[in-house]
């Protein structure tokens, strides 16, 4: 129910699951015995379309999947890859778990925080270009330090390589 006090973002929410996206989700429904099993795929679709998953989007997913919005929130917040806040145009995940730490991952992380201007973990740079996250093992420990920039998995990053790599992300 919309009230006079509802925020602009709430009243102007454009649903994700229309047209082709809805059709894609419906195709997925056929591949699982329950609709709820499409929860993670549906959340990925939202994040691909919007960059992050807002409360309104969670409510929309709840409706198409057939669970409560609170349930969706519980699921979303369980997984580290779903963003529940707006993020920069490029999200960088840096592994610093033990095997990478042994090979100097903390220095890579520090350099990335400086070069992006983010300074702090989880903060978006003032130009909106980057958000940096420290993550646990990315499953590429022999190629320390791996980072994930959006969907690009980049291996063997050293502090020296950082500036050059960031060039490619506007």
């Amino acid at each position, binding site marked *: 129910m919309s009230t006079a006090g509802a925020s602009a973002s709430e009243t102007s929410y454009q649903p994700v699951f229309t047209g082709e996206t809805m059709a894609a989700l419906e195709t997925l429904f056929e591949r699982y015995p329950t609709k709820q099993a499409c929860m993670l795929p549906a959340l990925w679709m939202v994040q691909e379309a919007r960059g992050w998953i807002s409360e309104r989007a969670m409510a929309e997913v709840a409706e198409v999947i057939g669970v409560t919005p609170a349930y969706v929130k519980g699921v979303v917040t369980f997984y580290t890859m779903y963003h529940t806040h707006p993020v920069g145009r490029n999200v960088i995940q840096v592994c610093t778990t*033990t095997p990478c730490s042994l090979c100097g991952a903390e220095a890579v992380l520090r350099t990335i925080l400086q070069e992006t201007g983010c300074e702090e973990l989880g903060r978006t740079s003032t130009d909106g270009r980057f958000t940096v996250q420290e993550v646990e093992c990315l499953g590429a420990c022999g190629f320390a330090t791996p980072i994930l920039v959006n969907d690009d998995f980049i291996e063997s990053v050293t502090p020296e390589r950082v500036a050059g790599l960031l060039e490619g992300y506007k």
Partner: protein
Amino acid sequence: MGYPYPPDEKETVVLSQYFGDEGARSYQGWVKRGGYQALEAALAMEPGAVTDVVKASGLRGRGGAGFPTGLKWSFMPKDSGKDHYLVCNADESEPGTFKDREIMRWTPHGLIEGCAIAAYAIGAECCYVYIRGEFTEPLAIMAKAVAEAYANGVLGEKLLGTGPRLEMIIHRGAGAYICGEETGLMNSLEGRRGNPRIKPPFPAQAGVFGLPTTVNNVETLAAVPHIINRGADWYQGICLGNEKSTGTKLYSVCGHVQKPGNYELAMGTPLEELIFDMAGGMPPGRTLKAVIPGGSSVPIMDAEDVKGCLLDYEGVVERGSMLGSGGVIVMDDSTDMVYQIYRLTRFYAHESCAQCTQCREGTAWTVKILERILGGHGKESDLDLLLDLADNMTGTTICVLSDSCAAPVVSGIAKFRSEFDAYLSGARPPALAAH
């Protein structure tokens, strides 16, 4: 082979034969290399006979627990009238482990073939491949290979045009180590939080969607076509140590070695050969201090434990640790053991699903105490406190993540106590700013 390095002559190359060979990735390329012959051979057998071959081969689960694969398959009910599921566990998130990733990147059809054979053996018409969300490249390669397999009549209504139906669905995870635990994975697949479930019921009775399910690791399933092609005796014969551990195993070697990568070895190969010969040993001038041989969840070995250790399930246990997933983390004498143990416990505290008190509280407190020690404010009693906590965290929870956090603490204090003492006495300056 020692991907990304050329194969070492001490390797026994089976699963990794085509690592680095882009031609093996496509359906046509795979068929040219003898692909899908094993599936054809399996379909000519009774499902139970396929399971028997795998049983006789001695193949054990490569996901960490080492459970005999054929035996696991034989737990699936027969003629239950229910739908059965196969789940391929490609969540690979255990620190130190990066082998399943290479299997998916280079030989996606080999994995699909292994899944198809396993599904046939257990009577499953549907296989979900659960791949961790960060593996963007393996996800894309697997999705393409599955589409090719459908287009070429391997998957779908009739396996290879003659067998039963098999649907294969790639499912993307979203960042949670605990979804690698098989019951956490099943909850995640069902669209829930990835909390592990209490067993029993076991997956073979009531697994994903409450139906009979077998969960197997990528490397386990990828070994199956080779076993069908070359026979149980051949596989069982790949054994240098003892007959309970057979076949080849992929070891991911990382940390302080000159040639980190994946090496495929016959069971029973000495750990020292892997670290010093194949992986090139420590950087010049450095000596070995510690090894975590089976992914971060197993006890730490010191240099003495490594001497003469044979890499198979029993050999590593004899030296006080476990083979686990085969992620070998090597640490040289420059390593601050207290800091690295702390870093490991931070991993577990972050990844705890938080449903068991001992795990949720225990991992958090362990991190806090280690932070205090590293910050120069530790108390003499802290080590006993850590051990006491570890004791409470072991064998008391729904899954073994809690035990995994305790393992490096207990083994670390036992073997590297002087490094803890150096922080406690102030002989070593604080490594962390006080909190």
